[in-house]
């Protein structure tokens, strides 16, 4: 493990169209919010320098189109991801329902070596709306986190910059941990794979 090597943390942001992926990223990186963002086409990324536990890292946040048919090209840029942020809109049931699919799609397309331990973060965005427009309450969100393997959850407002830094701090820490675990080398991850294979052979389903 070389500490001189510049650490780039690659983070993929996924979720339905219009949940606020671009806005979250812009708010975190550029501290701004605009009503004028266009629907993302293809893929783009922003970077930000961070210091985590005295370590300088560059976080690279990848933003993608939310309409499902465009995901077949995801394989081109998911590769090498260190963390995946799943975003839904708290005023939109369907975007919540789709989170599981986004996670699965990501795991397959990104060629993740060890899906059991790969870091995911769940974000429920748009909490600035009036309570009566909210369709997903905190309890329901926690259920989803449990279902996804007790992943960290944040409720944010990209518009009013609520909880953005807190969420991305955890994103960055998890990504760094993931990045460092990969440096243990192939022997380590192979051992895990063998273990998983063993498990699967006892599974009767």
């Amino acid at each position: 493990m070389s500490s001189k090597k510049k650490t780039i943390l690659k983070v993929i942001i996924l979720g339905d169209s219009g949940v606020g992926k671009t806005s979250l990223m812009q708010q975190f990186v550029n501290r701004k919010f605009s009503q004028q963002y266009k629907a993302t086409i293809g893929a783009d990324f922003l970077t930000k320098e961070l210091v985590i536990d005295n370590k300088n890292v560059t976080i690279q946040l990848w933003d993608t189109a939310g309409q499902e048919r465009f995901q077949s090209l995801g394989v081109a840029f998911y590769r090498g991801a260190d963390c995946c942020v799943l975003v839904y809109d708290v005023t939109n049931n369907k975007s919540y329902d789709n989170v599981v699919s986004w996670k699965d799609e990501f795991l397959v397309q990104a060629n993740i070596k060890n899906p059991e331990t790969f870091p995911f973060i769940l974000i429920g965005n748009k909490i600035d709306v009036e309570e009566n427009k909210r369709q997903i309450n905190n309890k329901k969100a926690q259920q989803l986190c449990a279902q996804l393997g007790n992943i960290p959850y944040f409720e944010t407002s990209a518009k009013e910059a609520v909880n953005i830094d807190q969420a991305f701090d955890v994103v960055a820490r998890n990504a760094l941990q993931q990045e460092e675990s990969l440096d243990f080398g192939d022997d380590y991850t192979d051992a895990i794979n063998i273990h998983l294979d063993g498990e699967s052979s006892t599974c009767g389903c």
Partner: protein
Amino acid sequence: MTDHVTSTAGKSQLLYAKSKVFLHLTKHKTGNVEGFLTITKRTASTSNKELAINFIPKSILNSEDVKTLEWFDLYGLDGEKEYSPYHEDANQTKQSSSNEPVKKAYITRPSNSSSTAYAFGVTIGSLYSIAVRPPSIHWKGSIILHSTLGERLPPIFFHDDECPGFKRELSRKRKQFQPFSENNLKGGEIPYWGGDRFITVLRKYAAVEANPAEKTILMINPTPSDLSTFIPQDAIERSNDKTSLFGQGKWKLLTTMAKLTNFTKNKVNEVAQNFEQPEVKAISEDFESARVYLAKWALSIEEEANRTRSKLILNDDYKSLLIEKLGKDFSSLVTPQDINNASRKDPLKKAEWDSYFDTNGLPKITIQEIKDRIFHGGVDPEIRPQVWPYLLQVYPWDVSTQEKHSLEITLQEQYLDLKTCWQTDINKRETDLFKDQKFRIEKDINRTDRDISIFKRLPEETSDDNEDVSVIKNPNLNTLRTILITYNELNANLGYVQGMNDLLSPLYYVIRDETIVFWSFVKFMDRMERNFVRDQSGMRLQMKTLNELTQFMLPEFYLHLEKCESNNLFFFFRMLLVWFKREFPYETILKLWEIFWTDYYSSQFHLFFALALLDKHSNTIINNLSRFDEVLKYFNDLSMTENDVDDLLMRAELLFLKFRSMVNVIDIKERYEGSAQLISSDLRDLIGTELVIQKENEPCSVE
């Protein structure tokens, strides 16, 4: 051999025979091996699966067999009398449609192999698939037989122009007014050719099904798993229960697949073989999505492999040929005259436009001249609302003023009908699909070009309006919504897809008349639909074609992109999807699009424009960038101006002229030598001005 004709000992019965078929063993005609393609039956009790398909070189046949084969090719299936669609003759010998022999004819039993004379054959039972390549103006039609053993046999070329049997078939087809292929692979536009009859006859003895993923591959007696191996990704609904995959051994398979980063032919074969293994089949059964992904990957891997195999970077032979014909650095390719022609001119103004038409509104000059003018200069904003509906073919060029008026009335009525249809149908508006699509449209309408004056937020719009996307106060955006919902209903299979709002907005900005904007959008979508089909095949094809074009025209830069793992040209996705709309200022896009719409040189001129963009930035990238993300960021963040557009259009035009000349030189050489085709058909299609139209076939569903 001098067997009696009546004796069938050591002989097989002919079920099909075609003369003048050839193996092209070398690039030279002298290397062609002439022969016959046959389907034969050994004995009366031979089953369909035991029937033999053979290529028999003419050189190893005795004269009697040659005579029999030539007779059979002419009359064996259709009878000796001429068929007439007007005179039914009860006594006439059996007529064509049965595709079974009229008379029994026998030849010496063909051998399935020979060490010297290139004979080969397979039984139908051991035939796995047939790759079919219909003829084009540049090459002869051919078929390749693939046996279940995996051996790849040489292509069999049909020299229809030399074949009396084919000519007779064709004249009979013409008399029946069916000049097109029955087994056509591209949707009805391929003329009848020699290979058609072979496939039709084969269908009598075997199940022949087009591979769902690759229509030019015909699967012979396929099992369900043969076909499912190639299931396109949109064919199967997503499974809701994918998580179970990841705790199990199936995961290993998926990661194995994804490790194939260097795509080679061998690896594709490995992948293909993996599909045959029982464990993979088991996954397919209990976990459909895995199969979708596997198929998706296999396809993209295969595409990659094909790409690598068909490298278009010219070898020294071609290079020296081009230098000989076109001068060093291809200097004579682009003449000062060409450069002069390609220089940008002032936009077409009202007075000049008006002078093109007579008092009845009919053009006085050729359409090509008008297009030439617009291609090189664009159109003055003042007359865009008039000119665009012509460019988009809402109005034919040759309608009189009067005809145009009645056309406008019809368009008005039709649009109103379509619009009222969904506006008044309460049941429809309550369906999930409608609500889903409407919501999708509204989300995007709210973020469509809000920086442009007519789409700006109004003072009365509060920030809370943003929470309910169906509240659209800006009347212009409201009209865009109505148009998109109406289009969503009109083209129900495709439905609304992200990016269409980007295509509609400039049309509305320029034309404003809701009806004409709608029909202009419908026409624009005809050519853009391939960008939005569910399986993304239209985008893939364009990226693949651009990749080939780059190899061919900018080989050094291509090699650099390969090093950066950027030769997939992924960074062009956005530019190709919405025709550079996000990269240029709004007003500039109006000009760029009207130039593309002329189809002056090519209906896919946008790919040459993309090539020009690569060309322009190649040095910067070669010298400074070495990673995929760097290259993507570089292109994503290009901020370009009107000047850039003019410069790129000139480059694109010169690149097109150079490309066309290079293709011509290579074609002449290859036609002369009868050699393999270097230029893929996708690349060659770039010279065409006919629109490339690809429609969505699957019905739209809730995504």
